[in-house]
């Protein structure tokens, strides 16, 4: 069994040797040359492998064809043969083991049989000997009963004989067994010898097998090699044949080509000769022609030379002329230069002067502007003061008016009272209160004037300027009569928005002028310009605009709580106050609280304006230019009013009153007389009561009791 294994190992070793690449230069070597070489080899190997891979499929195809060739057959054959050989050999070798096995099996079987027989025999022996022993033992009992010595002796002898027989039997058995053992021993020795012989045989066979296998393997290898050799030879010869055929074909073709070439060369030579002759002729003709041309051209050259000389002279003359002119021009140039210098000086002087003047004027301008500003300030203050005074005057006037009116009305009411008393009490007539317009009038009679839009604007803005302290008062009691539903603040914001968004309505010139101005003024002027562009002229228009804004906002955005909630609380309060105050004379549609202009998106402004302008384009009467002076009260109606007040009581009633007066005078006289008389009677009564009291005193005095006959008992007061 072992040899094939070892052989296989050998084969494998060989294969491994073949498989491992020849140990060449190593990459890990210390020598750089060697390393380089190693890398080169490696790269080459890789390229080779890649090439093989690329060609692999083709090669495979070819190989499969060649597989059927002789070498393949030989290989298959030898493989099969060798496999068979190996199989047979191992069988041959193992046959010995198998034989030994079966011998062992047989031996075991026999042994078992013999053992069984032996055991049986021994058992039988035991039984028989036991019987005999029992017999002997029985006889001992018998012997004890025997009294006669001869009998006893006989019996003892018999017993001895029996025992000897028993022992002999046993001994025989032992000897038999020992003999068996001996034979077994011999058998064992024989077996040992046989086994050693077997082992020898096994070894021999193994060796033989190894040799055989080696031999056959070598042979087969040779056969295979031969087959390959033959195949190679065949291939070589066939390839050679092919190669030779190809060579022959090649040489034949070469010859053919050569002949063709020679023919062609001859043709070309002929053609060349023809061409040469033709070229020569042509050359001659061209030469003659060209010579003629040369002659003509030389003649022309002569002519040209003559003209050239002429021209040269002309040019020289003109050159002289030009030189002279040049000199002249230089003189003129210098003169001009001098002039230019002079003028430069003058220019410089003028420039310095101009600068100076500019400075001067600037200074002046500055001082003037400062003056102007101061004056404007003063004027404003004056205006403010004036407005203040006007306000105060107005107030005072109003107060005085009211006072007087009140007084007059008091008087009138008293007069009415009196009249009524007279009528009702004295005359017994029904009294009707007279109804006059002036009775209902409270305060000074005034005619509201239309203010121009700009004025309003100014006021609005001015007010914004004076924000703060006045803010609280600005709402209802403000001297600006703003539209009731819109607070000044809202208006202002809308206007600012308008101003910011519709800058395009203002002329650019104006804008540039506005730049240095104050913010408010700037706004004012801008708004002025915008309004003039929009056609807004007076207060109403302005309010319309503002309302339009608010309404637009209200219409174009869904009414929501959010919006109102966004309105500042103060403003809301204001709005509410205004609403309450204005409930009487406001259209219902205006009752909606105007939303905050804050929510008007700057982008909407233009749309609103457009809508407004189209809405406003209605025929309007052009009123006279607005008066600049504002509060000149006309007191024409005042005197009327007052006079009317005086004539509350008509003359008829006055006459009535006069007549009544006289009658009442008389009645008064009578009444006074009666009063006098009444006084007299009263004094008399008093005297009477006094006297009565005196009498009572007397009566009640203690003396009366002491008296025997008190007067009280005597006389009884009849009254009691």
């Amino acid at each position, binding site marked *: 069994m072992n040899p094939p294994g070892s052989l296989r*190992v050998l084969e494998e070793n060989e294969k491994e040797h073949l498989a491992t690449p020849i140990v060449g230069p190593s990459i890990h070597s*210390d020598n750089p040359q060697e390393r380089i070489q190693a890398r080169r080899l490696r790269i080459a190997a890789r390229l080779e492998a890649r090439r093989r891979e690329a060609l692999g499929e083709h090669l495979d195809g070819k190989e499969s064809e060649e597989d059927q060739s002789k070498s393949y057959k030989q290989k298959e054959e030898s493989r099969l043969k060798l*496999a068979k050989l190996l199989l047979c050999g191992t*069988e041959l070798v193992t*046959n010995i083991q*198998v*034989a030994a*096995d*079966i011998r*062992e*099996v047989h031996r*075991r*079987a026999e042994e078992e049989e013999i053992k069984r027989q032996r055991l049986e025999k021994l058992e039988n022996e035991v039984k028989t000997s036991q019987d005999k022993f029992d017999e002997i033992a029985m006889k001992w009992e018998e012997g004890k009963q025997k009294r006669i010595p001869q009998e006893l002796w006989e019996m003892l002898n018999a017993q001895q004989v029996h025992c000897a027989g028993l022992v002999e039997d046993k001994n025989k058995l032992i000897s038999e067994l020992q003999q068996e053992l001996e034979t077994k021993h011999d058998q064992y020795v024989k077996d040992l010898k046989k086994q050693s012989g077997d082992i020898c045989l096994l070894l021999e066979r193994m060796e033989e097998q190894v040799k055989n296998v080696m031999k056959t393997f070598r042979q087969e290898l040779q056969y295979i090699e031969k087959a390959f050799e033959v195949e190679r030879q065949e291939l070589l010869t066939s390839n050679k044949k092919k190669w030779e055929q190809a060579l022959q074909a090649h040489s034949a073709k070469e010859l053919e080509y050569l002949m063709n070439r020679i023919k062609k060369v001859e043709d070309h030579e002929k053609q060349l000769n023809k061409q040469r002759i033709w070229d020569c002729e042509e050359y001659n003709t061209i030469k003659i022609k060209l010579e003629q041309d040369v002659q003509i051209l030389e003649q022309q050259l002569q002519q040209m030379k003559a003209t050239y000389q002429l021209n040269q002279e002309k040019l020289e003359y003109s050159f002289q002329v030009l030189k002279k002119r040049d000199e002249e021009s230089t003189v003129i140039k210098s003169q001009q230069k001098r002039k230019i210098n002079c003028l430069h000086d003058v220019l410089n002087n003028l420039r310095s002067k101009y600068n100076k003047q500019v400075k001067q004027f600037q200074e002046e301008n500055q001082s003037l502007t400062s003056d102007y500003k101061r004056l404007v300030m003063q004027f404003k203050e004056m205006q403010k003061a004036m407005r203040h005074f006007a306000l105060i005057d107005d107030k005072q006037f109003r107060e005085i008016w009211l006072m007087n009116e009140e007084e007059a009305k008091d008087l009138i009411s008293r007069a009415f009272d009196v009249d009524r008393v007279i009528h009702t009490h004295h005359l017994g007539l029904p009294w009707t209160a007279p109804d006059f317009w002036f009775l209902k009038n409270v305060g000074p009679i005034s005619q509201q004037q239309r203010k121009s839009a700009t004025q309003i604007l100014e006021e609005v803005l001015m007010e914004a300027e004076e924000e703060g302290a006045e803010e609280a008062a600005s709402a209802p009691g403000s001297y600006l009569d703003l539209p009731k539903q819109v607070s000044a603040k809202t208006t202002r914001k809308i206007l600012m928005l308008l101003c910011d968004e519709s800058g395009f309505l203002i002329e650019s010139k104006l804008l540039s002028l506005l730049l240095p101005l104050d913010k408010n003024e700037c706004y004012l002027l801008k708004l002025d310009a915008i309004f003039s562009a929009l056609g807004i002229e007076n207060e109403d228009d302005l309010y319309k605009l503002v309302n339009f804004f608010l309404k637009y906002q209200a219409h174009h955005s869904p009414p929501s709580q959010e919006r109102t909630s966004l309105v500042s609380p103060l403003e809301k309060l204001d709005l509410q106050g205004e609403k309450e105050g204005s409930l009487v004379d406001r259209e219902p549609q205006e009752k909606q609280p105007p939303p905050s202009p804050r929510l008007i998106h700057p982008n909407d402004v233009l749309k609103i304006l457009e809508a407004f302008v189209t809405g406003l384009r209605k025929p309007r009467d052009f009123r006279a230019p607005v008066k600049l002076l504002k509060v000149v009260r006309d007191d024409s109606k005042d005197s009327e009013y007052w006079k009317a007040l005086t004539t509350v009581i008509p003359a008829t009633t006055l006459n009535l009153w006069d007549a009544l007066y006289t009658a009442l005078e008389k009645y008064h006289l009578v009444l006074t007389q009666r009063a006098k008389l009444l006084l007299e009677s009263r004094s008399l009564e008093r005297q009477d009561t006094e006297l009565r009291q005196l009498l009572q005193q007397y009566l009640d005095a203690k003396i009366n009791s002491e008296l025997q006959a008190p007067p009280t008992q005597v006389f009884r007061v009849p009254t009691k």
Partner: protein
Amino acid sequence: MEETQITPSLSVPSWSSASTQDQSSTAGQASSTGPQPSKSCVVPPPVKSKGPSPGAGVRRMRRIIAEDAEWSVATVPLLTELCIQHIVKNFQNNPILKQLLPEHQKKVLNQLSPGLPLAVTANLIEDENYWRRCCTQRWPVCHVDEHGGSWKRMFFELHLENLLKHFIPSTTDPEVILSLLPLCRNYVHTIRVDQFLPPVQLPPPLRGGDQSDSSSEGEMEEPATGHYQLGDLVAGLSHLEELDLVYGVKDCGMNFEWNLFLFTYRDCHSLAATVKACHTLKIFRLTRSKVDDDKARILVFSLLDHAALEELDLSHNLIGDRGARAAAKLLGHSRLRVLNLANNQVRAPGAQSLAHALAHNSNLVSLNLRLNCIEDEGGQVLAHALQTNKCLTTLHLGGNELSEPTATLLSQVLSINTTLTSINLSCNHIGLDGGKQLLEGMSDNKTLLEFDLRLSGIAQESEYLISQALCANREAARQRALSPSHFMSPATAKGPENLAG
């Protein structure tokens, strides 16, 4: 003369020119030529004397001066060589190896003598060449392949085996082996010991007569006799995979005593403990050691649930049915792949238990029951088990008194089973009819490669036909092996056919 002298110098031009330049420029380049001190000193002094003639460039190249009688071509060896020689000489006292350059290491290793003490070399030298020299010096025949292809491993394994073989309990110092342990623990993978010497007994001749007659029972009563206890050694070897033991004595010649071949209970217990403790053990062989049922049971129970064990060989022992039952239990509780119970006394009951275990086993690849006596009863049961088993590839039932009934069942198995590759039924009484039935079974089988039916009483014709079928199977298997891509398709194609059949 001069021309002939110049030619050799040309072969080493750089060498000589460098040295002569050293001479001329004196100390200027002394530092730069540091690594070549030995070379510069080789230059003969006459050059110095002739040196002053600088113009003659050719003369500079000279190495040999005819006038100098003392000059010789033999150069002094390199300092490195000297150092290496010195290291080699004093290697036993001062082992320097790892610090050297690789090429120098190689030189040193080539020159070291194989007789150096193991304490020095064991853990220091890895070089296979050195150990190869050691092995070839000690043993004439060396099979490296049996030792995993490593000469070092082979050296240590054989060395250890040698020590164990000649260890005599209570006379040899156990330190002899244990002292080797730290040196060889990483290299020994296999222990193969085919003899264990018994302790020396002073009065062996007195008992000689008795023992020759009486059976082994007499010696069984002696508890003191024990062989070397492997426990300590095996525990120390961290890579041990194979344990191959024979408790017996070799070459005893005329000193034969039954006493010498004795595997006592004490040995058995210690061996069992040793095997149990060794978790790396893969192969365990205990042959020709008179292991009977009880001892086999002790061993097998210690091997239950062993993590690594793959092969168990208890051939040529005295194991009966109870031992076989224990082995069957082991099949269910381990990852055993090879079980060898050849030449034992297993009978039908033991075979039954083995068959029962085999029916549900998926690890066992090879089962050997050669030269037992399982008879038809056991053979039939085993054949039944093979109908369900899908793992076993090799089955050896040679010399088991099998006959026709087993053959009929086996023929059924052959037509069903696709894993079995080798069956051995030699030396049985299968008979002519049995042979025919086996032939029938073979006709359906495509996987069986070996089927040994020698000396089993079947007709030559059927044997020939069976061998033909085997040949075809082998050819198919070879084709499959050659083209692994084709392997899958025929195997799958065959599967349903076989199932259908």
